[in-house]
């Protein structure tokens, strides 16, 4: 039984927790990260990073199938092997997790392997050892996948799986039903479709990617359908008959019942937060009615002074980059600085299916609801020279401009490289640039980003190239 003391103890070494520890040591504090599994958390090991590796395989396969001949490349029959792609994705994750380990060493962050449980407002027990935080405890325990037990969709790891299992499959299933068409569901539908699986994508809300702008959803639904994915939106899952080698789903679609049989069902309808069994009740940390840890968004402090929460456990949106920002912020708060408040209205959202969908700010629907006097500027990639040259003409840039002050209320990009392109508009919104400033920045030609400048101009009624 050992005891040690640090300025900051971070419970959880994911994309929120480890940057918090690094920033704390940068500010001259001593910090330790307590991690029960691998450093980097879900993001690095079973989330963001390996799925991007698999999506790259999928995109390459799709591009070769679709374009090779036209581009003057002779390939013969294109065969795919999910097992090979999966192993590569594991290596990528491995490298990233090692990278985080290196960062911990470089920044003199102590890594404590084990499951931490709060035992008081400034101590955490890991096994028989007790660690004391002299300045603050940061809870960054993240979230996990979940099924929908009430309709029979309890995760069994064989026929009812989640991303956790899908990332380790040796072979792509013949048929797959994906329940939930948010970012995770849409990405896996894209991946398995490219590896030859017959995919049905099922969404309870009226459209795929329900948090995105309706126009973005439309493009994805069409692109998926064209590639052979069956897209069902506005669906209620009534019941599931689960066997080890397959599942039959009973659905209600537009008032009619329908059944679907699939070898596997991939559950991608929401995640559960890891708030249990870490001692929260014992020290009196309160939860919100939605089950997140209740925080003060300025300081990220919980209901217990000296205990902070960041990342998925601290509330929506459950996104790695939101958690990372909270990690940096909380370290500065604990170090006694007064960082600028986190602007939660400027957290971008990206889905890395093909074409990619990226957005920041409000959707047109939300803009309408809030009663803004607005004008939409659009520019399709089909009118962009570079997009034509690279055969990536699906999608558009859409900018919603407030007529009164020119503010960019929302920006939506669907396209092959939307995830990278959105940052121009995030920067614009963060600095409160108007569409005029976006236009004033000279955009290189020929680039996909010219579509952003054109959409900005179009919102003023003066696009040049359309």
């Amino acid at each position: 039984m050992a005891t040690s003391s640090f300025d900051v103890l971070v419970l959880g070494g994911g994309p929120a927790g480890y940057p918090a520890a690094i920033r704390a040591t940068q500010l001259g504090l001593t910090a330790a990260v307590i991690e029960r599994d691998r450093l980097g958390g879900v993001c690095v090991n079973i989330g963001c990073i390996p799925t991007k590796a698999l999506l790259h395989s999928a995109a390459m396969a799709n591009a070769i199938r679709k374009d090779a001949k036209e581009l003057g490349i002779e390939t013969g029959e294109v065969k795919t092997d999910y097992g090979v792609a999966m192993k590569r994705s594991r290596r990528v994750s491995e490298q990233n997790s090692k990278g985080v380990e290196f960062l911990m060493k470089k920044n003199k962050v102590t890594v404590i392997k084990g499951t931490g449980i709060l035992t008081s407002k400034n101590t955490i027990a890991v096994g028989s050892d007790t660690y004391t935080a002299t300045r603050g405890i940061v809870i960054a325990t993240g979230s996990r996948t979940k099924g929908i037990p009430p309709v029979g969709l309890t995760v069994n790891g064989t026929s009812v799986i989640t991303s956790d299992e899908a990332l380790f499959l040796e072979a792509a299933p013949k048929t797959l039903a994906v329940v939930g068409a948010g970012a995770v569901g849409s990405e896996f539908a894209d991946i398995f479709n490219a590896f030859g699986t017959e995919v049905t994508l099922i969404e309870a809300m009226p459209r795929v990617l329900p948090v995105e702008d309706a126009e973005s959803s439309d493009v994805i639904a069409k692109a998926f359908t064209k590639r052979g994915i069956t897209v069902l939106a506005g669906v209620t899952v009534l019941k599931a008959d689960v066997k080890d080698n397959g599942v039959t789903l009973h659905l209600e679609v537009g008032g009619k019942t329908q059944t679907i049989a699939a070898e596997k069902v991939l559950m991608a309808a929401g995640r559960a937060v890891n708030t249990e069994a870490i001692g929260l009740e014992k020290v009196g940390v309160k939860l919100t009615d939605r089950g997140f840890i209740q925080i003060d968004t300025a300081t990220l402090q919980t209901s217990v002074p000296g205990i902070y929460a960041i990342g998925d456990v601290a509330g929506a949106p459950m996104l790695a980059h939101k958690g990372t920002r909270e990690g940096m912020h909380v370290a500065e708060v604990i170090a006694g600085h007064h960082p600028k408040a986190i602007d939660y209205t400027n957290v971008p959202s990206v889905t890395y299916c093909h074409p990619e969908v990226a957005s920041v700010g409000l959707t047109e629907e939300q803009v309408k609801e809030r009663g803004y006097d607005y004008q939409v500027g659009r520019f399709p990639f089909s009118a962009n020279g570079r997009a034509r040259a690279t055969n990536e003409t699906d999608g558009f840039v859409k900018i919603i401009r407030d007529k009164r002050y020119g503010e960019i209320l929302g920006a939506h990009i669907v396209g092959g490289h939307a995830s990278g392109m959105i940052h121009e508009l995030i920067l614009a919104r963060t600095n409160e640039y108007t569409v005029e400033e976006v236009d004033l920045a000279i955009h290189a030609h020929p680039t996909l980003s010219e579509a952003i400048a054109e959409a900005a101009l179009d919102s003023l009624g003066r696009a040049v190239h359309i």
Partner: protein
Amino acid sequence: MATKIVMEALSPTMEEGRLVEWKKNEGDPVAVGDVLAEVETDKAVMELVARAAGTLIKRLVEDGAIVAVASPVGWIGEAGEAAPGDSAAAPATRAQAVARAAEPTATSVPDGPTESQGEASTAPPGGPAPASQTAYVDRAPRGESQPIPEAAPASAGDDTARVKASPVARRMAADKGVDIASVAGTGPEGRIVKRDIEGASSTPAGMAAAPTGAPIGTAFTDIPLSQMRKAIAKRLVQSIGPIPTYYLTAEVDMERAAEARDVLIAQDEKGKFSFNDVVIRAAAAALRQHAWVNAWWMDDRVRQWQDIHIGVAVAVEDGLITPIVRHADRKTLRAIGAEVRDLASRARDKRLNPGEYTGATFTISNLGMFGIDEFTAVINPPEAAILAVGRIEPKPVVINGEVVVRRRMRLTLSCDHRVIDGATGAAFLKTLVGMLENPLALVW
């Protein structure tokens, strides 16, 4: 890493400040928020506080130096650390600025290294920028597809004259008639962002986020100009000048007010209040009934304030300042009396916070103590009116057919005709006279 201490803009109109006295010596430890020095602005003596913790490693100016806003005055670092660019980091004091003009090869002030600019940071270099600022204030409300203002202050080369503000904040300020140079920025490095203007719009223009100022009234009603109001405004401005002022004078019988005051003071010597306090209280009560007088002319609209904040002109050694009695309609005479005495005495000592003298909705000027019978006061824009109060003197008047001696006082209301038409001003004055002549009206 050392952090530069700069002369901060401690009042909305401050361009330079006199560092009256250092409160810390070189080598003294300082914590964030510690008072480093006293600084005399154009309006008051205020405190320059530490924005970083450590040790005061260098004072760059002596007591008494006049320093331009945003120029360095010292460094905070670690004990024993040398100040960056030590001898070269001369602040732009007035004398040196002159010397520099004569010596074109002089090096400019080097920027010290600051660790993570966003937090350890220095003050906003946001001195007022008269030229660029008027470019915005004068601007008509923005139309649909107007280009951004070409006179963007960002292009100004002079850093102290530059107002750091986001494009959206600039437009919002122009639209709301907020003087952007007077807004305290809360963005990175003191940049003015949208939320600062949203905050400012509910406070009177010219109102910086006062460090310790009283809470400001939040509610107002903007009334778009009718075609008739526009025509009236246009014609009158052509006729007499930017503020078409006219004057209304009335004589008030102060006999009853004097009696009431005598009785109240006899009851409680300490709770003394003056006749002027009675006028403040009565005017506040009358304004409650006459929204058009408790208003501002905002160029494209009239802003009727829902709260009543009365500016009281106070003569000081080298000029005039108008501290404000906020929510005067909700305060007792004694509270007003105590507040005015406190404000006036601190005004004379130059110890008012900016929040205490900016943002009045109506102003009262009293020259009675100088034996002035009546006078016309000059409107303090954007306010729509000002009340000039003369002396109280016994006069023979006819009451019920008999000549009697009564204490009388003359009031003159200066009105901005673009906001207040003759009958509107007269109605307000009538209410005010009625209240002063029947002080019980203030109770009921």
